[in-house]
Every structure is written in structure tokens, then in C-alpha cells.
């Protein structure tokens, strides 16, 4: 059972720390001949599959490399536009690697701020008075747990839906934050956390949580 990632969001909704731990994404490399039987399109500075599915390549997968050379955004490693390149029959046969694109740091920043707002909306929508913000969000592949401290810092953990003991883990991360970030004289409040000891201890806590299956009170 895995903990996928940890996000720390400050009072204003800005992402101040992010750690990714998830398993390698599924990738598929295939050799294609002209014409390409997948429909590709530009999306957010990437080239993704908009229609077509075969052999592990799905809609939404991004082009990761062409002929072994990693792509750079919308262009090939050599700087040519990918869609132009793939429309030219002379470039075939071509070997393309598809996979789920990792979130860029900008995207993570946007998602963290979005969650910060939704967290507040969650407490407004409550049929009962005095509700907290969103404490847990569930999808079919992961569960997102959020703990908001009294000072407005949010600790967000994405984990496997079956993982238990995340509440204790969130409290433990808060403890690690106060020990290694707040007590660090060179760390300024609400700023991105760049403290080595915080990283190390956080990774340690995640390992304990994953190994135990649940984070016991005795740890």
C-alpha cells in the first residue's frame, strides 16, 4: 500500500512543499508506420492522444519521446514541431513512447490553490453549522486526506484508498514541520520549505506508514 504524494499549503493557498512518491507510471513504446492511427493534439504545451487506443496507449497519454530522444513540450528534441514531424511520411517508421505525463510544478501549484478554495467551499456547503473544510476526498484510485492546523497550514496526503492510519500520519507530518521547519532559524513562515531535515524525516515517516500498513500510535 502506497502513499502517493504529500503537499503542504500555506494560509494564502500557495504550495510551499511537495513530495511525490508514486510508482512509475505505465509507459508504452511502439514503432509506427505512416499513417499514424492515433489522433494527437496540443494540450497545455504537450502533445497528447485525443483519440485512439492500442497496446497500452490510452487517450490522455502524452508523447514522451520520439526515436529515443525525449521531447521538449510541443517540439521534438531537435526543435521541430511534433505534429508537423508526424504528418510527414518521410519520417516513418518512427518509434514513439507514450505515457501519462507527470504534473509540472506549475500544474501542482494551480491544483494546490484550487484545492485550497474548494476546501473553504466544502465548509460553506455544509447543511449543518460549524463544519470543517474537506477532510477526505475519495476517488476510485486514491484518497486525499487533508489536515488544517489552527494557523491555517494544510497538510495534504494522497494515498491508496485502502491505506489506514493517515490521520496519525498527518499529525506526525505536522510534528515534523514544527520541529524541522519552524524551529529552523533560516526558514521564513509561509515560504517554500527548503529544509533538508524536514525532507529526511518526512520520507522516514512515510516509509514507516507504508510498512506498517497503518501508522500506529506507538511510532
Amino acid at each position, binding site marked *: 500500500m502506497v502513499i502517493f504524494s504529500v503537499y503542504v499549503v500555506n494560509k494564502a493557498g500557495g504550495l510551499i512543499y511537495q513530495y511525490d512518491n508514486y510508482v512509475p507510471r505505465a509507459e508504452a513504446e511502439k514503432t509506427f508506420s505512416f499513417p499514424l492511427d492515433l489522433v494527437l493534439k496540443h494540450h497545455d504545451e504537450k502533445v497528447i492522444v485525443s483519440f485512439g487506443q492500442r497496446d497500452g496507449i490510452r487517450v490522455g497519454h502524452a508523447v514522451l519521446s520520439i526515436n529515443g530522444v525525449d521531447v521538449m513540450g510541443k517540439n521534438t528534441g531537435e526543435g521541430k514541431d511534433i505534429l508537423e514531424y508526424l504528418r510527414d511520411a518521410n519520417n516513418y517508421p518512427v518509434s514513439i513512447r507514450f505515457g501519462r505525463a507527470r504534473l509540472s510544478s506549475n500544474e501542482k501549484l494551480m*491544483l494546490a490553490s484550487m484545492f485550497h478554495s474548494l476546501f473553504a467551499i466544502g465548509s460553506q456547503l*455544509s447543511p449543518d453549522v460549524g463544519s470543517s473544510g*474537506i*477532510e477526505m*476526498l475519495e476517488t*476510485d484510485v486514491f484518497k*486525499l486526506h487533508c489536515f488544517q492546523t489552527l494557523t491555517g497550514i494544510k497538510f495534504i496526503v494522497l494515498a491508496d484508498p485502502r491505506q489506514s492510519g493517515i490521520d496519525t500520519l498527518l499529525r506526525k507530518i505536522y510534528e515534523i514541520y514544527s520541529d524541522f521547519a519552524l524551529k529552523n532559524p533560516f526558514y521564513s513562515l509561509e515560504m517554500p520549505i527548503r529544509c533538508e531535515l524536514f525532507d529526511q524525516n518526512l520520507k522516514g515517516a512515510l516509509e514507516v506508514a507504508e510498512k506498517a500498513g497503518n501508522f500506529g500510535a506507538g511510532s
Partner: protein
Amino acid sequence: METVCFIASGTGRSRRESPRMSPSVLRKDGFLSFQTSKYRLHYYETPSGLKFVMNTDLSVSNARETLQHIYSNLYVEYIVKNPVCVLGHNLDSELFSSRLDAFIRALPYYSPRAA
């Protein structure tokens, strides 16, 4: 337990962002529910983009079947098959409202709130 039901159509983007944070591409159901300290919001989206939202208290863990039933047995029967109802506008069917009310009251986890 209080239940509040919303039905929304059209494209709502913000909730759909949650699958982007997920590590696998197997997006069968997507976002299911979220909970706060007082309530839980359940969500079901049909392939046609119709969104069903239900707020319950914390004791209800999975209402996806319920929402799916509301869609296929109530919405489709009493709204879609109703020639007078204009899809996408306010659902103005007495029959739909009363059947929905009866269905919710008959749910095992429903109990009338003490005033």
C-alpha cells in the same frame, strides 16, 4: 440524517481536476465523494455529462448505487421520457419530485431528522 440532492448538467471543470492528481490512468469512476467533519458529499456523473450530487451525514459511506438508481430509474423514466420536460432546464415534474421523495424516504440509511 439530511439528504439534499442536486442535479446539474453542462461542463463543470473544477471537480474533474481531481483525477489529474491520480497516479494511474484507469479512470473508471473518477471523483466519488468528499467529507468534512459534519457531512459527506456524494457525486455521480453520467457519460452524457449529467451530474448528481447528494449530501448526507458521515454514516453513509457509499451512495454511488443510490445515485445511479436515481438516474436510471427516476430521472430517465420521469424526465427524459417526459415530452414536456426540456432537458437542461429546471426539472418541472411533480411525478419526478414525488417519486424521488418516496425513494429517498425508503432508503435504509434515511431517518427523519428530529426537529
